[in-house]
């Protein structure tokens, strides 16, 4: 599904990604871990098409398309979804209204008819149930005055609505207490199937207790320095990132 080859990127004059190689197949969950400043969030930003980051080398193939050539909105319409670490507030715009606009633009791109009000409402009700979110939250201005947990749950609701092929969860666990974490993880798990894939970007192992990855990659200084299965995450938890750092330095 996603094939990243030797991806390099910088912001301003600062080189952050120094050659990332990563292959993600449908049905898989990959976790990207690493210490602060290792480039985890940059990778998520580059994949979603944030303008501030300049790609300086490498290529990314997404379902046969050159991802780096696509505008951010077309990437989304092709099926890439990012759950933001810091979801943005948009005063006066309800989640419902926001989702209706998004969904219908995506459908238009795919040559589908816009959903009428009844079908949209039906879909919304179904997805609300799936991720256990209350409608009152969806009527409010998007993310305005939401708690950390509400914001993240709202991200997962949006993910459920848009049914992406590849979901990138950027530090979704940050700022969540254990109950909120469990609810959010549950939502993600329910959305998993053999046709979609998920990249979980996280600093801590704890989220991976709930969203169990097929592969774990450790990012350090803009490169994937170690890959393994979910046991690698546990090992990291036990030994800390210094273990990776020293191993890299030795090598």
């Amino acid at each position, binding site marked *: 599904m996603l094939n990243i080859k030797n991806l390099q990127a910088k912001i301003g004059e600062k080189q952050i990604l120094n050659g990332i190689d990563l292959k993600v197949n449908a049905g898989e969950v990959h976790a990207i871990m690493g210490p602060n400043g290792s480039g985890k969030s940059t990778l998520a930003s580059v994949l979603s098409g944030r303008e501030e980051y300049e790609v300086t080398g490498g290529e990314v193939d997404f379902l046969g398309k050159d991802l780096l050539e696509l505008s951010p909105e077309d990437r989304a319409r092709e099926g890439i979804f990012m759950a933001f670490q810091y979801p943005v507030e948009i005063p*006066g*715009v309800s989640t419902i209204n926001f989702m209706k606009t998004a969904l219908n633009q995506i459908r238009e791109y795919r040559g589908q008819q816009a959903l009428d009000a009844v079908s949209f409402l039906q879909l919304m009700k179904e997805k609300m149930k799936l991720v256990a979110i209350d409608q009152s939250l969806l009527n409010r201005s998007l993310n305005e005055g939401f708690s950390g947990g509400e914001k993240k749950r709202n991200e997962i609701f949006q993910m459920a609505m848009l049914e992406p092929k590849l979901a990138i969860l950027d530090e979704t666990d940050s700022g969540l207490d254990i109950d909120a974490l469990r609810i959010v993880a549950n939502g993600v798990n329910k959305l998993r199937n053999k046709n979609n894939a998920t990249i979980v970007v996280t600093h801590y192992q704890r989220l991976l207790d709930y969203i169990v990855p097929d592969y774990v990659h450790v990012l350090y200084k803009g490169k994937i320095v170690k890959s393994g299965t979910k046991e690698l995450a546990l090992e990291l938890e036990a030994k800390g990132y210094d273990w990776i750092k020293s191993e890299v330095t030795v090598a």
Partner: protein
Amino acid sequence: MSKGNQVLEEITSKEYEHGWTVNLETDEAPKGLNEDIVRFISAKKNEPEWLLEWRLKSFRQWQKMTEPKWPNVTYPVINYQDIIYYSAPKQKVKPNSLDEVDPELIKTFEKLGISLTEQKRLTGVAVDAVIDSVSVATTFKEKLSELGIIFCSFSEAVKEHPELVKKYLGSVVPMSDNYFAALNSAVFSDGSFCYIPKGVRCPMELSTYFRINAANTGQFERTLIVADEGSYVSYLEGCTAPMRDENQLHAAVVELYAMKGAEIKYSTVQNWYPGDKEGKGGIYNFVTKRGLCAGDHSKISWTQVETGSAITWKYPSCILKGDYSVGEFYSVAVTNNYQQADTGTKMIHIGKNTRSRIVSKGISAGKSQNSYRGQVHVMKRATNARNHSQCDSLLMGDQCGAHTFPYIDVENNSARIEHEATTSKIGEDQIFYCLQRGIDEESAVALIVNGYAKEVLNQLPMEFAVEAQKLLALTLEGSVG
């Protein structure tokens, strides 16, 4: 076609959907303004002597006045002798039904999306359509007249209800009020008149669509709404103008008069031609709008969505004379490219326990200048007056300007005045968030702007709110990036 013209054509046809001209045979006054022209207008309309006298008095008053220079706008000197002050579509027989109306006219309405026949059948809105200064079709009149409501063109009111017109004309905006009001009083061509009798709640939104049509024609509309004791009316004013190269002057006067316990809600969506991307052309909109809460417990509420015009100079105001009277002002003013807007309100508290509320949302894009100018004046005997003002500015890009000029004069110590102001920019983060959900940039801006203006848009009647939302998006097209 030269390349320059071609480019202009492309720009104009894309950006201004309502840009076209209709070929109606017009009946015009010669250019310029003098007492003879005033007499010509009055004669054309078969007006009574008292009204001609009133016009002449206004004209003489106007000659003594000078154009105001304090607004935060700049424009070339207006040559008042180069303007045609009267033009009317030729229509010899008054139509009894829409079938008798000039088909060209009906076409114009259809382009605007307001087919009268459809409106008549489907909606509860009575439309008093004003094209080139003369009302040509009025619907729903019979239904309204059953309730004793008078809703007609100003000229008709002069003929049918002279006692009402005579009593209230100039009672809220005196002819000497300001330069443009005096000019309007001298040369006003037509407009709307509305009277709601005691205790009657007008069952439908009363609506007027304005069009500026003949080249070089100043528009001098006059609207007078009188709400008798305990009555209620909601009035909609909406307008679009065809593409023009020369600047067109518009100086309207709107007077609202609310008696004891009466409520008037006046909503405007203004979409006149703002000029092209280089700031060429466009309407000069110098309007005087004022409401008088004459009786106790009366209420006047102004809602405006201003997207058009090259220059807007407009301060819909409330004089809160009656005790416990309420004044409200909700405004969204958008400026793009080279547009200039200096708009706001005045709340004059005279009566006891009077309250006023101001919500102003300015949006500036391109190289435009957007100013809020508001005055809250609490007079000596206005015990327990209260005002809350909220003035927000939203900036798009870094070449536009937003300015706020609040004036607060308090002569009574019991007054409670609150003023809040914010300035914000549409964030890159907000835009990116939308993009990442598959929403393109234009729609993202429309979404964010409509969210920002929601508090004001919510005040509009449903069908108007939808139109206003589309307008906001249309006006800001191409303003990010």
